């Protein structure tokens, strides 16, 4: 029975023991003695304490005492030393035995080997720590060093290193080796990636694991004398494993070294596999971060060089994000939260209405927009910005604008200088041609006027004679009338002074033609800070006529309107261009400005040649415009607005049938002073 019990106890997996109520051990099974290498005699009493890991002993004994006092069962995890000095983790359980009276008579215990579980737990915790470092954006070398330390603590007695393949793919770079001597690392890095320069170079080159179990008998890498170098550092084994990206590209190699010959166990291999996986994540992450940073730096530099900032604007929440350069353009501190109010505080007061209009419109339809506006900086200097934005729908369906803002101040200033020179030139050219035209007109008008005055003088003399020469007076008076008609004819002819080029007739979509003109004059209107609203009627029937001539009229009306508002600073320079169906199958286009307007009695004079209310203009545009419209069987007129400004409209018939018999279209001409003189001299 005694023998039978002994056999069972000694056959059980794990250790079995018993102790007196005071805790002194009186039995340990053979497995315990075999594992620790301590005899039963030496272990009894408190002799077993020597097998406890020094770091665990104090806590275990405290706990054991608390159990003895309370008489309660319990369990504790501690490392026990093996006979060869290795420690393994055990779960130690103790249970009290009581007699029928309830008195504690004996403690029985069992120890279970939990080394594998503890190792897996530690490894998992270490991996978790390393992955947290990756996610937390720690430096790549810091992460790889922590990984090395984790492996070194898990697989005791080893030294770890990580080398990376450089960007060119030809040399090894140092990454981490927390426990290896610096001189060893120095002699590894910079080695070419091939099969000859060493195990890590070879593993990287072949993308497969290289095991050198005993460097003392190793024959590879002789050309680079790698083994003697490693042996000189006391290393006798090296296992090198490639670290690959998810795409399969070799990033580098991870090596374990031992100071004695060794071959990897399955445990080592699984450790290596886990390590290289985490390392590849860390390296890939670091490399893509670096690439992103490079690309960001590149973009920032490009933005700086081109004076262009970028932004995003989530319309629903007014969340606005700016690039660094945009902060510099607006001269706000980096990172200040951007709001529409903040932007508004920098926008030039005169451009605020335009900006509000733009924002309102953007909120509405989400269409792309392009604007030029000015900033007024705190030192009262002015910046000119060109903004272009593209509306997109985010995944949640919310409208978001992505845009770029370029500081075009320098370009604008030079354009303005150029524009001034150009307008001076244009003015000179205009005055010159006007002068020539005026002289020519004066000559033609002075001739009949001369006749009129001379005839009148003669007439008076004839009537004053005694007796009065009534017949002669009548004749000269008739000549006076005829000369009066001649003068009138000259004016009529003048109005018909257009080029001989025949107009073309085609079907014209007035909306399309208008949009083209708007596009052409857009920058000019922007420069004049005009807010243009186009209300182009749907379903507008086509008209028949000369597209270019009609566009000249529209352009003329637009530029006149813009010019009429050039002095307006107390209200938005609002310009509306509208197309709509008119009565009688006609199509009407109206250009409405908010300028100074005109007196009602001047409404017709506006269209006379040479009539102008503008100091710089010559006013021939409107009379030519009217001629063009009339040749299209249409009508051009002006009306003062209810509020400030005026509206100029034309109305022309739709469709070809209305244009039949429009032979006079061929007479539509454009003004040319030289032609004018020629026509007048050869009437």
């Amino acid at each position: 029975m005694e023998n039978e019990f002994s056999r069972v106890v000694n056959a059980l997996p794990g250790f079995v023991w018993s102790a007196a109520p005071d805790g002194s051990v009186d039995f340990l099974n053979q497995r315990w003695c075999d594992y620790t290498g301590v005899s039963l005699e030496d272990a009894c009493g408190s002799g077993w304490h020597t097998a406890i890991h020094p770091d665990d002993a104090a806590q275990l004994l405290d706990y054991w005492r608390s159990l003895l006092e309370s008489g309660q069962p319990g369990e504790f995890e501690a490392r026990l030393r093996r006979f060869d000095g290795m420690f393994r983790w055990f779960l130690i359980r103790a249970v009290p035995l009581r007699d029928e009276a309830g008195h504690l008579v004996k403690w029985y215990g069992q120890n279970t080997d939990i080394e594998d579980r503890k190792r897996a737990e530690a490894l998992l915790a270490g991996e978790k720590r390393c992955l947290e470092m990756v996610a937390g954006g720690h430096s790549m070398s810091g992460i790889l060093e922590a990984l090395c330390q984790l492996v070194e603590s898990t697989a005791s007695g080893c030294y770890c290193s990580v080398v990376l393949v450089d960007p060119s793919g030809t040399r090894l770079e140092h990454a981490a080796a927390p426990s290896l001597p610096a001189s060893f690392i120095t002699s590894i890095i910079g080695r070419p990636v091939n099969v000859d320069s060493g195990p890590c170079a070879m593993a990287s080159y072949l993308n497969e694991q290289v095991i050198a179990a005993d460097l003392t008998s190793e024959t590879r890498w002789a050309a680079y004398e790698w083994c003697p170098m490693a042996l000189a550092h006391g290393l006798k084994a090296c296992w090198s494993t490639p670290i690959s990206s998810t795409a399969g590209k070799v990033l580098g190699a991870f090596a374990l070294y031992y100071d004695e010959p060794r071959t990897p166990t399955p445990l080592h291999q699984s450790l290596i596999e886990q390590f290289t996986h985490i390392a590849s994540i860390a390296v890939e992450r670091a490399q893509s971060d670096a690439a992103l940073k490079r690309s960001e730096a590149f973009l920032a530099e490009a933005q700086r060089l081109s004076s262009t900032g970028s932004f995003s604007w989530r319309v629903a929440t007014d969340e606005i994000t700016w690039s660094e350069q945009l902060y510099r353009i607006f001269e706000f501190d980096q990172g200040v939260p951007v709001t529409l109010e903040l932007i508004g505080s920098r926008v030039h007061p005169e451009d605020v209405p335009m900006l509000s209009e733009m924002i309102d419109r953007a909120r509405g339809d989400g269409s792309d927009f392009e604007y030029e506006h000015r900033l007024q900086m705190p030192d009262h200097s002015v910046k000119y910005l060109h903004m272009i934005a593209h509306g997109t729908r985010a995944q949640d369906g919310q409208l978001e604008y992505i845009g770029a803002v370029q500081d075009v101040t320098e370009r604008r200033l030079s354009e303005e200088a150029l524009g001034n020179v150009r307008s001076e030139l244009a003015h000179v050219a205009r005055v010159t041609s006007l002068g020539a035209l005026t002289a020519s007109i004066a000559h033609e008008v002075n001739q009949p006027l001369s006749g009129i005055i001379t005839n009148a003088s003669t007439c008076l003399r004839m009537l004053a004679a005694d007796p009065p020469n009534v017949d002669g007076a009548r004749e000269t008076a008739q000549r006076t009338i005829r000369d009066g008609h001649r003068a009138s004819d000259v004016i009529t002819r003048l109005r018909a002074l257009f080029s001989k080029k025949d107009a073309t007739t085609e079907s014209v979509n007035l909306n399309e033609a208008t949009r083209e003109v708007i596009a052409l004059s857009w920058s000019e209107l922007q420069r004049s800070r005009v807010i243009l609203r186009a209300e182009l009627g749907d379903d507008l029937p086509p008209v028949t006529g000369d597209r270019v001539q009609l566009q000249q009229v529209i352009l003329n009306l637009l530029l006149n309107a813009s010019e009429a508002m050039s002095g307006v600073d107390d209200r938005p320079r609002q310009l509306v261009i509208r197309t709509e169906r008119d009565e009688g199958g006609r199509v009407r286009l109206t250009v409405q400005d908010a300028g100074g307007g005109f007196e009602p009695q001047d409404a017709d004079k506006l269209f006379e040649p040479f009539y102008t209310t503008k100091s710089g203009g010559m006013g021939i545009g409107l009379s030519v415009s009217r001629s063009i419209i009339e040749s299209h069987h249409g009508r051009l007129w002006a009306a003062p607005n209810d509020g400030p400004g005026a509206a100029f409209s034309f109305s022309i018939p739709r469709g070809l049938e209305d244009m039949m018999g429009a032979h006079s279209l061929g007479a539509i001409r454009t003004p040319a002073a030289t032609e004018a003189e020629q026509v007048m001299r050869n009437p």
Partner: protein
Amino acid sequence: MVIRSLVSVVDDDESVRESLPDLLREFGFAVQAFSSAEEFLASDYVGRTRCLILDIAMPGMTGPDLQRELTLRGQEIPTVFITAHRDETVRPRVLEQGGVECLFKPFSEAALLEALNAALSDPPRSCTLGG
């Protein structure tokens, strides 16, 4: 019978050719009108003309051309230039060339009379102004 001084009018403009001779006749002159310098030169009135009223800008031979031609022929006639081009630089040019006066169209009766008086006063010939 008073021999009226002959005033010749050379102008390409019909209004002037029609109206001016009547007024000059009212003044008491004999008048001949020509539509071009060439027509005047070809006529037999050149030697009899006491005063020439001459348009400056005409197709073909201009007023100043005609005056130069007359000078070359030794047939200088006191000349009053008239023009519808109100160009102030023209006046000194034609006066320097020997014109008596330069009138801009339309001109007044008074200005015309004054110019004619100046033209006819030197050298004095038998003439009667105001008929």
